[in-house]
């Protein structure tokens, strides 16, 4: 604005020019408003269904069954529905199994994929591109349907319906993603830092331990969280590989879906949704890292 005013002082601005300028300003403001409008509409599109399910889960079962429902959320607020869900048969063991499977998956996937991610980001070696491409291919392929043959094999090996074998399958599902995320995390740490450490007398292992590791830990944590969420959410492979005595939470909900009441279902849906709401917040930065790298 000040530039405009100084111009006004020196140059006689014709009213037409000023009109054009005003129009441009108005258009800019309009497009800004439009951007906000679209942004907010899209946000509502994402948030309103979550609000619906949350207000169903956080009220009394009587309200859940009432009709027509109030569109305003949480009226009246109560944890009764959620408690009813958590006290239902098989839910607490299901949650325990889900957590056990997810933690094993997380450890397994991180331990296996961290070296591979490091190798991709730090070395150029024959077959590197083939390796990366095949990982991408695996990422894209429907590995979930491979649970059928795995079920047959697990039955033969007597490790069917078992949290460990399910976690192994989930780790395989997560592996491509974690490798790619971790390679981008390692790539974001300049190699000079490692080199400098070695110049000052560190062994390569020490340089990794004291320089690289502290810097990549947040990234590794992000990948681990991603793996956790993936395993927590996964229902197809889980319902094929462990459908009897070691059901995870989603499997328990899925299998009892037909005979369960709406308060149970809604509370279950909301409960499964919570971890992803929290975790995605922490790892959102790394999601973009990963896909930016892939499309290059």
């Amino acid at each position, binding site marked *: 604005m000040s530039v405009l005013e100084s111009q006004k002082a020196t140059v006689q601005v014709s009213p037409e020019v000023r009109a054009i300028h005003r129009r441009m300003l108005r258009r800019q403001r309009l497009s800004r408003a439009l951007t906000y409008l679209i942004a907010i509409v899209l*946000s509502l599109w994402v948030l309103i269904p979550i609000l619906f*399910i949350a207000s169903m889960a956080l009220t009394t079962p009587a309200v859940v069954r009432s009709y027509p429902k109030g569109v305003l959320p949480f009226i009246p607020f109560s944890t009764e529905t959620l408690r009813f869900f958590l006290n239902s048969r098989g839910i607490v063991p299901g949650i325990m199994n889900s957590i056990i499977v997810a933690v094993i998956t997380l450890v397994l996937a991180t331990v296996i994929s961290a070296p*591979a991610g490091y*190798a991709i980001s730090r070395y150029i070696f024959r077959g590197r591109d083939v390796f990366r491409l095949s990982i991408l291919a695996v990422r*894209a392929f429907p590995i979930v349907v491979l649970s059928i*043959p795995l079920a047959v094999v697990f039955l033969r090996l007597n490790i069917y319906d078992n949290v460990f074998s399910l976690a192994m399958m989930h780790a395989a599902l997560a592996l491509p993603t974690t490798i790619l995320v971790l390679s981008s995390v390692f790539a974001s740490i300049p190699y000079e830092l490692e080199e400098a450490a070695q110049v000052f007398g560190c062994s390569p292992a020490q340089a990794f331990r004291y320089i690289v590791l502290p810097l990549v830990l947040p990234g590794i944590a992000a990948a681990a969280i991603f793996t956790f969420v993936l395993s927590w959410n996964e229902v197809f492979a889980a319902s094929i590989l462990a459908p009897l005595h070691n059901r995870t939470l989603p499997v328990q909900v899925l299998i009892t879906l037909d005979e369960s009441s709406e308060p149970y279902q809604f509370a279950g849906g909301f409960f499964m949704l919570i971890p992803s709401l929290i975790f995605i917040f922490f790892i959102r930065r790394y999601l973009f890292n990963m896909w930016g790298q892939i499309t290059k």
Partner: protein
Amino acid sequence: MSNRVSGKRRKKRNWAPYLLILPSLIYLALFFAWPMVQSLILAVREGGALLTLRAEAQRDSAVAGRIPRGTQISILDQQGNLIAAEELEQANLITEVWYQIRGQEPGGQEIEGWAPAERIRVREQGEDGTPIAGSVRPRLVGGADPFTQVHAEADEDSEVVGELEARAPVEILDQTTLEVWYLVGAEIEEQAVEGWVQSRYVQVFGDGSQGRVNQGDTSQYTTRYIQQMLNNRFFTPALRTTLLLIVIIIPVQFVLAIIMALVIQANPKGSSLFLYIYTIALGVSDLAVGIVWYSVFTQFGYLNSILQRLGLIDSPITYLSATRQHWIIIAIWLAEVWRATAIVMVIVVAGMQSISREVLEAAEVFGATLWQRIRYIILPLLRPSLQVALILRTILAFQVFAVVVVLSGGDVVTVLANETYRQYYDLRNVNVAASYASFILLLSILTAIFYLRAVRTQEEVAGS
């Protein structure tokens, strides 16, 4: 960084990277490549389809022929054969027990040998239930030889060492279990075949002279499972719905994702909050999404509540019923768009970050409208990202499962992944389930090849 790294390589051949990727290679081979092959094998290979007939009642004797499972057979003879202890677990075994006995012949001479357990009545047992002593059973059938023969070995064909009178007391020294082998005859393609088989493969009925092959010992390739899949009444609807969903979901997702990415790129205040909101669905399980949208579309759900409060309807409509399949499709469509737009958006935003701001500003300076900028600058530069997103989304769309199960109950509207699950879990038909799985794999491979080809030819055309 790359020149430094290549400098590292020039020093010497470095094995470190191979060691580092080795665990993941092994893991992917075990849990990806190998099951994929197994899935194909399960789909086309029938285990135990054929039963091998042996020339003699020996497992290593010459092959006399093979007959398929289910063949009617006549049983011509039978004989007991020693069986290994670990094989006793096997189902459908027909066994004979023989006792090693010691007793006195009518002449007063002591003899020792083997007799079938059915000829001996056990009179005394040890603490663990093993028979210690007994007596020879009398033969009830008139005209039969009143004596019971004692054999040198637990085999009816072996040498007879002596004969015992009915009711003669015997000591039982040992026992052994034999598996019965049958000499069977059958007609295969108007040719009579004959040979020995183990009882575990055969079901005997009637007076013991007729039977049926229950289970084979050799597998063979078959198209039976694939035919079963193709003839299943749910196959065509499942395939049709899966493809329909892909066609109606993916374009909407891409439009939405690009709009979201443009909003983020316009960088309004609070854009990081918007970004977080748009990515929320990325981490939500498909089962939870199904339930979320179920709460909207169920009979006493939100949609009806809102419509009723607005006075648009008088009584709740049941959307998710067999007579309103289009509503189920709409619900699945909304749920999938809601859930899976986030991944496309993330890929598109990542791709947009690599478009230089100068190019866009230059276009703006030269008077390009928003639409022109999208059409002629952003979309062409985004093509690699869009390609990846398209491949990924399409292949993932072949696997929609929980959303469909929740919203349709899994029967009214069904998809390929749900049929795989149904064949495995409800019908216990692993082979047909593997056929479905292999079919999904095949579709995915074809899709990937199709997209890669399509984009490459476009580039070649543009390049020439």
